[in-house]
């Protein structure tokens, strides 16, 4: 059941990314190009996605998930060094070519060699992040 729900959620996420045009790097870079011909499409995608999720979060205030367990607690970490550093690095890479993790995977089948290169580099970056995050976190504890 958990696997079926995960497959369904992943598929619906991929279909939504495709339909919304968010696998088109020009649309994403167009949104980030405030000094040029600004394309607000990404804002509509975000707004459309936040709406059902805001309702879903309200429903988590009581009860449990369908497959049991409990709903995820909010992170107690607050705005810390790793959050800010990570968001800065991610944003720089996102602006560079207009791909973030969801669309990079959704467009894998038609993204050509470049799409595959991006995914491999992204996974390499994820592996490299593990020791880095530990260092940032331990420094935060000392501070």
């Amino acid at each position, binding site marked *: 059941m958990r696997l079926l729900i995960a497959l369904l959620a992943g598929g619906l996420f991929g279909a939504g990314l495709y339909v919304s045009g968010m696998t088109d790097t020009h649309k994403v870079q167009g949104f980030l190009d405030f000094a040029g011909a600004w394309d607000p499409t990404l804002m509509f995608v975000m*707004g459309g996605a936040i709406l059902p999720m805001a309702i879903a979060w309200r429903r988590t205030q009581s009860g449990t998930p369908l497959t049991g367990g409990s709903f995820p607690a909010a992170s107690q970490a607050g705005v810390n060094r790793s959050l800010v550093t990570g968001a800065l690095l991610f944003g720089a890479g996102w602006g560079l070519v207009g791909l973030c993790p969801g669309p990079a995977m959704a467009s894998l089948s038609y993204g050509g060699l470049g799409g595959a290169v991006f995914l491999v580099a992204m996974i390499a970056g994820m592996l490299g992040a593990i020791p880095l995050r530990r260092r940032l976190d331990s420094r935060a504890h000392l501070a």
Partner: protein
Amino acid sequence: MYSDWIMGAFGGLMIGCAAAVFLLGNGRIMGASGILGGLFDSAEGNLRPERLAFLAGLIGVPAVIHLLDPTPAETGLTGNLALVMIAGLLVGLGTRIGNGCTSGHGVCGISRLSLRGMVATVIYISAGALTVAALRHLTGLI
């Protein structure tokens, strides 16, 4: 132009419903970087089959739609593979250090009114905008 915005909002609704299914069904936050990155991080617990099922849907369904679409989508990705590689590394590093990307911090965090999600989203959009401004308008590289 306007049709792009309508399709954007419609696709966005689908993305939000996907996140709601994952949350209410499995009690999990739908963050693309976390679901992929957790596969390679032993500290993230034993959710490998669930992650793989999610990724199969995320990659497989757009592949099928792309085959059936009379005007198939294109990524328009730059042919400069060095740039693509640097961008991929930065996105991988940044999303795992910062614990989230556009779906986790953006969609799931903002809808929960999470301060971390909102701050991260403002920072990565600003960093992305500065990068585009620097590379497109100052150097003409992209």
